[in-house]
């Protein structure tokens, strides 16, 4: 095992706790404690939002998808960044001015309907759990890759650590901790990539897609863990395959991947419908993620919420330049992942595979592992805090009289479902599962927020109907994808990437439902709109 690994991970945890303790010295009131201090500058706030947002799916999953499928999946990083532009254009400033802390709060402020509030809570919990699953998957995968232990133990270990952390109040939403995590994640990918590029240069710039197909850079031995057809020859479980350096990488029937021109050029076997569905889900889904919205409350006013979002767009955009390079270089230095199907591990394995097992390779390997740890610690803590908060106030109905014990119970409840699910769906791509969470958010909260902010005639009945139709349909599609049997043909596309039909459905139902019940438009809609849109300087 890599000797730098354990010290690296300990340093990450110590620095995180250290900054947290340092940050606590500034927290004086309860609201300071919950949302850091409201006097945080846009730059710090933006780094904190980015730190919480860039999860295991971004850190490990995007590079893995690119290694596997090539240019078609570049839409994932583009969409993950573009979501913040949609948030900026339609939601950021008015949402901050509404004074809502969570999505259920916004429903209460805008439409004053307890039913809608409860429905929104259900969706926050569902999306939060769905988003937690890939974080734990990433943790399990990292644990297996780095220590050779079992996947389940890794996922369980991180699940328990994060739950204990949130339940005991060890890692609250402290702005400085999250901001530090962003810079750590950026460094952990940016520094190794410089050395990787230099290595690629000194190797004589090997082609990413050589003519006869991908080849092994060094002699490699693979053990089959299940029956598979390798290059047309059926083989049984337990068989050992050895390849010399320079031998072509065979195609394995159980691993779905693109090769040659399919990988290099757009429009391989991914259909146009799936691509547009993915674009719609990621562009519109970001605004509905529970842990993202909470952070906007930290801005002092609407104008600074807008500036913060712009800085987030810059920070996130900078980060997403890097996973693409890992995916491409992984094609050259770690082609064996295309056989095993564990492509999500490419970021962790690439430094040592390309630079050799010397001190440099090991140091950089420890650095990316530390970054991965930061990725799932920060995102899952933020997510679990938001989900547990909603379970605490809206499901357990604890309200103001709720005790700390109730909050801890809520945390354990909120964590148990995703931990169990992560054990079950270990073979799904991390980024795919995250894409599903975005699809649900885009078909439930996006219409609710956009119409709630810009359309006076929205009614509570219309909103409930729209969320039930769009959100319900996408939720069903997700459950079928994760738990159901594999599907074929157009049905597979429509269920696997539902956003292209569920988002328009939600908008249409919400608008027509509101028009049909136009008598139920809240009487104070004028005052609400004034509050959402007028600059704070006019409030005397």
């Amino acid at each position, binding site marked *: 095992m890599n000797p730098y690994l354990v010290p690296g991970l300990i340093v990450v945890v110590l620095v995180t706790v250290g900054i947290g303790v340092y940050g606590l010295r500034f927290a004086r009131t309860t609201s300071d404690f919950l949302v850091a201090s409201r006097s945080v500058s846009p730059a710090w706030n933006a780094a904190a939002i980015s730190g919480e947002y860039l999860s295991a799916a971004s850190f490990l999953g995007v590079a893995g998808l690119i290694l596997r499928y090539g*240019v078609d999946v*570049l*839409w994932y*990083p*583009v969409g993950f*960044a*573009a979501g*913040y*532009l*949609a948030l*900026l*254009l*339609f939601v950021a*400033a008015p949402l901050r001015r509404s004074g809502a802390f969570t999505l259920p709060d916004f429903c209460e402020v805008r439409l004053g309907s307890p039913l809608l509030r409860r429905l929104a809570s259900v969706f926050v919990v569902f999306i939060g759990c769905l988003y937690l699953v890939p974080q734990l998957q990433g943790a399990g995968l990292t644990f297996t890759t780095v220590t050779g232990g079992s996947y389940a133990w890794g996922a369980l270990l991180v699940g328990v650590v994060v739950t204990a952390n949130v339940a005991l109040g060890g890692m609250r939403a402290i702005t400085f901790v999250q901001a530090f995590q962003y810079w750590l994640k950026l460094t952990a990918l940016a520094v190794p990539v410089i050395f990787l590029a230099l290595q690629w240069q000194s190797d004589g710039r090997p082609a990413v897609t050589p003519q006869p197909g991908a080849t092994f850079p060094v002699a490699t031995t693979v053990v089959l863990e299940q029956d598979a057809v390798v290059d047309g020859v059926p083989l049984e479980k337990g068989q050992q395959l050895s390849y010399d350096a320079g031998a072509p990488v065979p195609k394995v029937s159980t691993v779905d991947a693109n090769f040659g021109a399919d990988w*290099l*050029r*757009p*429009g391989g076997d991914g259909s*146009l419908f799936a*691509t*547009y569905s993915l*674009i719609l889900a990621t562009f519109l889904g970001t605004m509905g993620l529970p842990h993202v919205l909470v952070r906007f409350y930290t801005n002092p006013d609407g*104008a600074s919420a*807008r*500036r913060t*979002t*712009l800085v987030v*767009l*810059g920070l996130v*955009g*900078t980060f*997403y*330049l890097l996973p*693409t390079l890992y995916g491409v270089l992984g094609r050259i230095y770690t082609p064996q992942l295309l056989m095993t199907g564990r492509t999500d591990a490419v970021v962790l394995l690439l430094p040592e595979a390309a630079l050799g097992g010397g001190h440099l390779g090991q140091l950089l390997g420890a650095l990316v592992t530390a970054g991965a740890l930061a990725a799932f610690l920060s995102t899952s803590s933020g997510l679990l805090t938001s989900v547990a908060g909603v379970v605490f106030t809206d499901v357990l109905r604890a309200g103001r009289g709720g005790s700390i014990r109730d909050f801890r119970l809520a945390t354990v409840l909120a964590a148990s479902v995703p931990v169990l699910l992560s054990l079950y769906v270990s073979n799904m791509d991390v980024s795919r599962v995250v894409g599903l969470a975005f699809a649900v958010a885009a078909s439930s909260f996006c219409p609710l927020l956009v119409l709630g902010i*810009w359309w006076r005639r929205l009614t509570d009945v219309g909103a409930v109907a729209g969320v039930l139709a769009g959100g319900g349909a996408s939720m069903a599609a997700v459950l079928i994808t994760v738990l159901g049997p594999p599907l074929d043909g157009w049905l597979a596309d429509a269920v696997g990437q539902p956003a292209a039909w569920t988002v328009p459905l939600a908008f249409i139902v919400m608008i027509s439902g509101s028009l049909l019940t136009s008598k139920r438009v809240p009487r104070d809609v*004028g*005052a609400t*709109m*004034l509050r959402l*849109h*007028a*600059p704070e*300087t*006019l409030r*005397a």
Partner: protein
Amino acid sequence: MAADDDVKAKTDVNPERPARTRVVLGEAAARRRPADRAGTDLAEQTPIGEALVKGLMRAQLALALRLALVVVTGLGALPLLFAVAPGVGGVKLFGIYLPWLLLGLLSFPFLIGVGWAYVRWAERNEQDFVALIRRPEQ
């Protein structure tokens, strides 16, 4: 009538522009308040006040939709382009295939540029609105 008021007010903004930067003492601002009719309209939800807010909302929504259209045509049309004209996907620039360059590298500065333009123009809309409310009554 309310709409007329809105249009007239908008044309009034430009000649009034220097007034916006004036620094007013708290005392002077308090003395001016009874004459600040637009502000009262806004707070008391009169039809004029409502029309003023509607005007601001319309301006902000139009700006957001226009910039969203820029992104939809700039980025959203790419999959269709690659599907309709597969030759475009094979063009190489600086030794890199065009789709990789467009999506992996250039899309991010494009998004940031659109966001920057939005923040600038949205803030200008709000400043105009504040100037409109705060303008001294003739």
